[in-house]
């Protein structure tokens, strides 16, 4: 008896992990509209506490994917599970764990903010005893404390967007899916919402779809890029930065030498002129020619005025990946 209980102890300790490990897991997700394949064989994994940036040009299938993940649209093929619950088998149990803010916030203009959030809480089966508190928390988190008694129809676009977000988090879901949440907000509100998303990422997982790439770099842990219905990139933001950072330098020279002279420096793989006085210098693998470059610039009087590591930004990756296939 004693041995069995000690044997089981570690098993119990590791039990919560598979549940905690992934809040959304979608495999082979495909959606066709007639002959048109909107989403093709997407696999998506979201871990607890993670903020996933979901990118792609217009019409790449982001919204369709989000509609499928939130149970608004049935996938043609593939499976989705939310915290281990199959969305297609047990839609109610799975949907109770998701909060969704679609592109157009689903607001009833004729209700007040409080009435609306109350309704959202009821629909998501928040028990009566906790409902008032849940509404108050959601309102406070989204900066709507003052707006409780106002009609949604009379609110400004930015405030309506906040009500939309409040609606998505009122039932403290495990996964929050936000489709372009900062559209129409002023810069201060954007900062607030970003902070909120980061905060949500602590206890919940967040999928964030947006066109604003710096936003993704600011708040997301991981990025997935969709193009023509397929997933073309999936990696962490940290990997993206580490991988590319320092590999190239932007060098501004007032009296530039021919590029060949730059390329001849030790540790430089290639040099190309971006502008007449601005060069992009690519490093040879493992080398850091910055010192040599500065010394050469001083010795040969090139008039060095700018030296900046040209990080490959998300924008470069995005443009690179989504322009590639254009000729097809």
């Amino acid at each position, binding site marked *: 008896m004693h041995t069995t209980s000690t044997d089981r102890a570690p098993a119990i300790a590791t039990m919560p992990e598979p549940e905690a490990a992934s809040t959304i897991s979608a495999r082979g997700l495909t959606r066709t509209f007639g002959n048109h394949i909107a989403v093709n064989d997407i696999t998506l994994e979201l871990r607890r506490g993670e903020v996933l940036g979901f990118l792609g040009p217009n019409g790449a299938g982001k919204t369709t994917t989000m*509609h499928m993940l939130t*149970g608004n649209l049935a996938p043609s093929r593939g499976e989705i599970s939310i915290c281990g619950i199959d969305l297609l088998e047990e839609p109610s149990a799975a949907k*109770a764990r998701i909060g969704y803010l*679609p592109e157009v916030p689903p607001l009833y203009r004729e209700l007040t903010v409080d009435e609306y959030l109350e309704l*959202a809480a*009821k*629909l998501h089966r928040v028990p009566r005893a906790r409902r008032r508190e849940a509404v108050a928390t959601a309102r406070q988190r989204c900066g709507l404390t003052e707006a409780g008694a106002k009609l949604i129809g009379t609110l400004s676009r930015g405030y309506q967007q906040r009500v939309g977000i409040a609606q998505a988090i009122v039932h403290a879901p495990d996964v929050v899916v936000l489709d372009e949440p900062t559209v129409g907000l002023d810069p201060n509100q954007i900062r607030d919402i970003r902070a909120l998303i980061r905060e949500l990422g602590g206890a919940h997982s967040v999928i964030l779809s947006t066109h604003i790439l710096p936003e993704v770099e600011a708040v997301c842990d991981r990025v997935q890029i969709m193009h023509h219905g397929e997933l073309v990139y999936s990696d962490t933001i940290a990997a993206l930065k580490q991988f590319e950072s320092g590999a190239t330098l932007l060098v501004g020279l007032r009296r530039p030498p021919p590029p060949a002279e730059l390329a001849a420096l030790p540790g430089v793989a290639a040099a190309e002129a971006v502008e007449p006085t601005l060069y992009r210098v690519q490093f040879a693998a493992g080398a850091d020619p910055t010192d040599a470059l500065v010394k050469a610039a001083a010795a040969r009087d090139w008039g060095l005025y700018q030296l900046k590591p040209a990080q490959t930004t998300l924008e470069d990756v995005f443009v690179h990946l989504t322009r590639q296939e254009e000729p097809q």
Partner: protein
Amino acid sequence: MIFTIAGKELRTLFASPLAWVVLTVMQLIVGYAFLRRLDDFLQMQPQLMQMAAAPGITELVAGPIFGTAAALLLFAVPVLAMRLIAEERRNQTMVLLMSAPVSMTEIVLGKFLGLAAFLAAIVALTALMPLSLAGAARLDYGMLAGLVAGLVLLAAAFAAVSLFVSCLTVHPVVAAICAFATLLVMVLAGEAAGDGLRARGWTVAASLAQVVSPIKSFEPFSKGMLDTYAAACLVLLAVLFLALAIRQLDAQRLRG
């Protein structure tokens, strides 16, 4: 969950001027019909006194005004029901319901019940008119109850048909017009088919035709009869169209 949605529907209905306009217009027309009928009754009263089994005030006043209300509901219900699904889809607020842990059945039944509650208020207001005579005349409360039940069932059948039509389009006005056309065709075609079949002696087929003709099913109630077949026809019609509405919404989720 059904009642949450029903409550929301009722609240939205009362928040819109449309519902109040419909209520007002119906009250005005039914009220006018009531006063006309009452006037007629008072003029006929001396003759009625001499008849052996004279029809009572309930049959002569309440019956016809419930008939008027039934005819008005044919116009009013499509207008009241047009927003139910169509407008939610048009404003993209349907997503709130679809993303919530609520089944299609609950959505449809909730919306249906919300509208039915509003229609029950219309029926109650109609019933208040003959009830206002309670102090001055002896009313046939059994018949009045039958009239109320009949009108509620009729309104429910209209509501179910209109709700289904509202699932088919994203334009509320189109939904209203199509629902009205559908109801009108059902009433007229069902009646014509019923009469035609009965004339040929095919009574069973004629009875079946009554299912699609809700006004025909209401007739026995307005004559003070409690016809269980007619009641069953109205209930069946409502259930059939609610089931169709659920199917339609499910199909939309699959089709996109």
